[in-house]
């Protein structure tokens, strides 16, 4: 989910593990807190677990961080989502193969085109879905309540509109709070039927509903609460997900307990204990205090060494994200495409990734990460070519008389990370340009980024859902609020608009690929790399799914000692 997630994740890693070299990891480090892999997909685990409970008595021990919010309507960072997706659930969810599948809904409804151009989804709610405290069954009314609560201005969610704004009447309700959301309709005759209407055909809408913002909460707990006030209920959060929140001791630990009646199959673990107080992750792992740990750049060479015993427990898996250098194409000198191209051609990505990042990431030529539908293996990236770079720079309207250039980055280590340092060095060497660096901590960084204060910035973006729209349209469409580059190409915009409503999948992905190639050539971004998980997992931990972004995954995990 979201790019902030990525930055926060990296920061969290540094908090827990390598405070001293914090800054070094902010860009493209290992997330040392991350819980590991098992990209191996054993089919039987999909079907194991029945409401009768295949639950064992095993506990999985992990290192974690406190969530900023356990309220699904408010959670926007990786840490929060990690817990929220296990405790709560919505109409639909994402399975381990990243398909959108029914959760509280009985089935995935077919979209129905209405005469006025809107599209309706008729959800049938699964019967017998209980809240964790077993107070009652979830009905359509609960879903409607939860969606409207997220959008209600009293809830003060800064992100609800982003995820639910496609629903007819959602934006109006989010600013006035009056009435309800007209696009969410109950059925008088059937308390288990709910119709959701969106403003236009959007193939990615259901995927957006898998995001926590759309999850079902207990009205008895959440009435009168907001993201910022009366949040104590979150420590006894009552959801419908595969795990119950048994204990949340702020800054100390979170204990999740299996929901043996979970409607998609009971978890195989009895419980999960997240240690929130920190510690030296790899040391704790080696000393058998935790079962899974992320591996940072400091330890990666050691665990990769085949003669090292830990090597057998080491796994990697891709993450659906991208790290890039963004240009503000409205600011000098990056308003000239030749300058942008020159800066791109001057970066030796092979060296950057091989030497600085120790091959712990995947080189990025384009925008879309591997695994994302529409990922284009034949995409033509901008190759490292110092001669061409110099030539482009002198051909640009600034010639050899380039104004001062500054790159902004997020971090709090007061020292420049190795990635930035290497790139700055390459620009100096290959272009003869001295680039200054401005570093601020993440909240300030993102505010300035949104305000368009930067000439150039290094940042990441993580998938929120599995659709190329989430990268190309959200980040690089002319009118998108999240288009920090201020990039605008009539050709790209038109392709993205067509792709939005194209119903034929192959055709749609082809449109995205066309748009992506144009973007790469126009260089609003220099794509750098896609992250990978680098994780150690104890041999007795099975089916530890390493998804490319946050999904509910703990119910697949089992321990066989």
């Amino acid at each position, binding site marked *: 989910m*979201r*790019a*902030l*997630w990525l*930055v926060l994740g990296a*920061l969290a890693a540094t*908090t*827990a593990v390598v*405070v*001293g070299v914090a800054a070094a990891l902010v860009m493209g480090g290992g997330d040392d807190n991350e819980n590991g892999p098992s990209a191996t997909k054993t089919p039987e685990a999909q079907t194991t677990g029945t409401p009768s409970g295949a639950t064992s008595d095993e506990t999985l021990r992990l290192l974690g961080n*406190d969530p*900023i*919010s356990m309220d699904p309507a*408010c959670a*926007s*960072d990786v840490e929060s989502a990690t817990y929220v997706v296990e405790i709560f659930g919505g109409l639909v969810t994402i399975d381990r193969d990243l398909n959108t599948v029914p959760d509280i809904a009985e089935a995935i409804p077919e979209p129905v085109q209405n005469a006025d151009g809107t599209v309706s989804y008729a959800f049938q709610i699964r019967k017998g879905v209980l809240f964790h405290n077993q107070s009652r069954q979830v009905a359509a009314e609960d879903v409607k309540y939860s969606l409207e609560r997220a959008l209600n*201005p009293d809830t*003060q969610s*800064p*992100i609800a*509109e*982003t995820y639910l704004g496609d629903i007819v009447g959602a934006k109006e309700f989010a*600013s006035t709070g009056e009435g309800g959301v007209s696009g969410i309709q109950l059925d008088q005759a059937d308390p288990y039927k709910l119709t959701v209407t969106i403003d236009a055909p959007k193939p990615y809408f259901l995927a957006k509903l898998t995001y926590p913002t759309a999850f079902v909460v207990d009205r008895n707990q959440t009435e009168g609460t*907001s*993201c*910022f*006030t*009366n*949040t*104590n209920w*979150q420590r006894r959060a009552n959801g419908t997900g595969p795990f119950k929140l048994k204990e949340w001791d*702020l*800054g*100390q630990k979170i204990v999740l307990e299996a929901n043996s009646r979970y409607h998609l199959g009971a978890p195989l673990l009895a419980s999960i204990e997240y*240690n*929130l*107080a*920190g*510690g*030296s992750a790899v*040391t*704790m792992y*080696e*000393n058998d*205090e935790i079962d899974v740990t992320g591996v940072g750049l400091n330890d990666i060479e050691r665990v990769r060494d085949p003669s090292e015993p830990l090597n057998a427990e080491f796994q990697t898996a891709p993450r659906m994200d991208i790290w890039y250098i963004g240009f503000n194409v409205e600011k000098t000198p990056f308003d000239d495409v030749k300058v942008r191209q020159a800066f791109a051609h001057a970066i030796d990505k092979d060296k950057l990734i091989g030497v600085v990042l120790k091959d712990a990431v995947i080189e990025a030529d384009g925008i879309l990460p591997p695994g994302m539908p529409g990922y284009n293996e034949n995409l033509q990236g901008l190759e490292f070519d110092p001669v061409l770079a110099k030539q482009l720079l002198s051909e640009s309207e600034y010639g050899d008389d380039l104004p001062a250039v500054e790159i902004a980055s997020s971090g*709090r280590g007061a020292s420049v990370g190795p990635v930035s340092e290497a790139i700055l060095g390459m620009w100096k060497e290959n272009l003869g340009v001295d680039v200054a660096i401005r570093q*601020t*901590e*993440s*909240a*300030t960084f*993102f*505010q*300035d*980024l*949104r305000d368009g204060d930067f000439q150039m910035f290094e*940042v990441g*973006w993580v998938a929120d859902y599995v659709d190329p729209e989430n990268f190309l349209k959200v980040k690089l469409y002319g009118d998108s*609020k*999240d288009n920090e580059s201020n990039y605008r190409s009539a050709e790209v915009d038109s392709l993205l608009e067509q792709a939005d409503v194209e119903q034929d999948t192959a055709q749609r992905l082809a449109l995205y690929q066309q748009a992506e190639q144009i973007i790469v050539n126009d260089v609003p971004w220099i794509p750098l790399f896609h992250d990978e998980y680098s994780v150690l997992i104890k041999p007795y931990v099975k089916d530890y799914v390493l998804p490319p972004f946050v999904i509910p995954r703990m119910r697949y995990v089992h321990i066989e000692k």
Partner: protein
Amino acid sequence: MPGILPYIVRRLLWAPFVLLAVTLATFALGRFGPGDPIEVLQGQYNNPEVVERIREERGLDDPFFNQYGRYMWDALHGELGTSSTYLGVAVEDIIFEKMWVTVQYNLLALIIIFAVGLPAGIWAALRQGSWQDPFTISFLLLFRSLPVLVTIPILQYIFAIKLGWLPSSGWVERDILGLKLGIFDKRIIMPLLVLSLPGIAAVARLMRAQTLEVLDQDFVRTARAKGLKEFVVVSRHVARNALLPMTTIVGFALVGLLGGSLFVETLFGIPGIGRFVWEAVGNRDYDVLMAVTLITAAAFIVANLVTDIAYGFIDPRVRLGGRGGG
């Protein structure tokens, strides 16, 4: 000791002004600095209208002095605001618990530091000129010079991974006489070593210097000339006088306990205030930072006062409040 009461009253009258200045400065830094809790929650999403609306509803757009006044009014009523690290949780519900953790292990470390450091300093001073003095001091200096970022991983490697005697980190609380105590668990051993070794070095060095100075004084020579036993000379005349300046250090060291250590707490997984404050800074958690500042400033005022008064009792030559005394 005449004048002690007016002195205390005068000092206490000043306290509110000190606190006002400190809180005003901290509040201003937070409010005028960039970013706020909504930015943190919003992350990389960009919806300026929504953010503006929330800011307005939460009063973050009110004039500075309105916000400051509101905060102080609530603070005087024991409401220290709400955290944005744990969104919406009352600050007073978190920080005292975290401070208690930090105070526990730091207090224990402080006791060890003085219990070992003071005798070590005296011992070294008495052996000035022999090999034992420079040896002791340089041995201690070694620990003083090693940063915790080096010592912690080394200790963890030795005690946890190689020997397997101790868990590498953690904080396990036990209920003892109704108090939640974490210092009666073996996990505390490594943090204590890391904290006390450099402290012992510092105290011993200072104590050595003080002792040497006192040893040169006439009254020591007199005491020896009187034929007093060396033990009596050292314990009654030397040590007592050399200890005086150490009182100041104890006072401030006690307040320093509230601060905690980011590195120690992070690498050893101790849920104390040091790590929490560090996170609070990153999360733009104004209210937590304000509360910690307020409490620490108040503690400093009290510690300062107590030290001064204690000084007066320990050393009759020190006169409080008088002009040109002493």
